[in-house]
């Protein structure tokens, strides 16, 4: 059981999209003998727990969490993102899936040179890279128990029925207001940032999730959603084409193994930060952190 709990935690953690996670909260330490889901947002963790209750295993919960996070913290996660999953299955198999995004073929040296200030281009359709999250979920589904329609249900419900805007959501909205009001005013609350405590719905995302849940992941890369994206890109001077989407593959890789004070570790390989984590932990092994308090300068700096 311990092993499956740790794989659950690792899977959920690693399936998150890669942008910075802003949420920092203080909460009591919780324990469970039956399984536990952690996520950057309580509603996403609840989505994972709901899937466990329906008979899903860690990977099922991780998929549900990933989809739910895309709804409740769209500034940090989502179908348009990328990631890396590293999981240890109950039978001991180690799995690593690399679903980082790829640049479209038209994002070549010549076009990038002509595009102007790349700091600004990144906020235009030209800045879009082929998303890896749907393909990563597709690969993870091969190891899951429950169908995508069940795993996507909590995310669809959140997007359709609404949820309360958090302080973090609101702050990111404030910080990014200028760019949001210029590029996607419809995302805002009548032109203004969403306030903490407000009720947020995302029917367009719910519709997209419903299409994926009904038609499968392939619709994102080869079907209806690929056609929609291709049309949007052509109309708005973007570079991604359906051919880029069709060519995308999530990659199965070998995780890297290491140890820390007798614990076996399985981490993602390069270019994700796994090797760095192992190196850091191996250095830390030489220090007795247990005798230092959490705020001991030696503990912090080591």
């Amino acid at each position, binding site marked *: 059981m311990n092993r499956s709990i740790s794989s659950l935690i690792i899977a959920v953690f690693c399936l998150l999209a890669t942008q910075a996670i802003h949420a920092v909260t203080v909460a009591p330490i919780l324990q469970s003998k039956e399984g536990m889901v952690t996520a950057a947002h309580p509603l996403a963790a609840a989505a994972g727990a709901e899937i466990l209750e329906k008979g899903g295993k860690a990977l099922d919960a991780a998929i549900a969490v990933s989809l739910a996070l895309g709804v409740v913290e769209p500034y940090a996660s989502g179908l348009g993102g990328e990631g890396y999953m590293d999981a240890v299955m109950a039978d001991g198999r180690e799995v690593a899936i690399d679903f980082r995004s790829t640049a479209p073929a038209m994002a070549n040296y010549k076009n990038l040179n002509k595009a102007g200030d790349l700091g600004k281009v990144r906020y235009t359709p030209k800045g879009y890279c082929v998303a890896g999250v749907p393909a990563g979920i597709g690969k993870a589904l091969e190891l899951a128990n429950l169908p995508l329609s069940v795993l996507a249900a909590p995310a669809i419900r959140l997007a359709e029925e609404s949820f309360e805007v958090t*302080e973090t959501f609101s*702050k990111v909205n*404030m910080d990014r*207001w*200028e760019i949001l*009001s210029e590029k996607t005013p419809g995302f805002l609350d*009548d*032109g203004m940032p969403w*306030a*903490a405590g407000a009720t947020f719905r995302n029917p367009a995302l719910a519709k997209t999730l419903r299409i994926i849940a009904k038609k499968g992941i392939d619709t994102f890369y080869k079907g209806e959603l690929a056609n929609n994206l291709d049309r949007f890109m052509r109309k708005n001077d973007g570079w991604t084409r359906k051919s880029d989407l069709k060519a995308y593959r999530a990659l199965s890789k070998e995780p890297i193994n290491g140890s820390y004070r007798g614990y076996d570790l399985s981490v993602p390989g390069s270019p994700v930060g796994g090797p760095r984590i192992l190196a850091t932990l191996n250095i830390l092994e030489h220090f007795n952190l247990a005798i230092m308090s959490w705020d001991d300068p030696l503990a912090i700096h080591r």
Partner: protein
Amino acid sequence: MKNRVFQVILACSLFTVFSSVSMASEVVLTPFGQSPDAMMVKVVLKKLGVNARLEKLLEADGFQEEKVLITVVAGSSKGLGEAGIDKDAEITRMKSVADVAKAKGMKVLVMHIGGKGRRGTLTDMFIVEAVPMADKLIVVEGGNYDGLFTRLVEGTDLEILPANSVRETTEPLQMVLTEWGVVEQ
């Protein structure tokens, strides 16, 4: 004939609409801390029909016969960096701007619209300097979570005008600007 009547009715309606709002730029807006929040207030003012001039680095000699100075407080390291000034220079700028505004008989409205998320060491430093400049003070919910604004207005006649969100600052803004003769009732 029908067209003529319609035109007259339309003209009268438009006149009625426009006569209730400010036509000239009677409001000058500047951030205190160089966050983008002042731009949001400009949008809210536009919804109220108030044409405000936004000057990110308004100086004491930069007024153009406006009646009201609105300063929106929130510290942004990025904004200060882009503007090429540090926090001390920003405080000096705002103090001299507010002094001249008062000397000209202008009203000063201080706003904090970012809630709890727009508080912190840098912003608090600006808030402490800004509140004494204010004739009126609007604070969006969460901004006064620790009672900082309450402590700063203690013993003064200044009242904190609350709003639930940036969007809902229209209500206190309309009230204040009506009282100051910028918006007609």
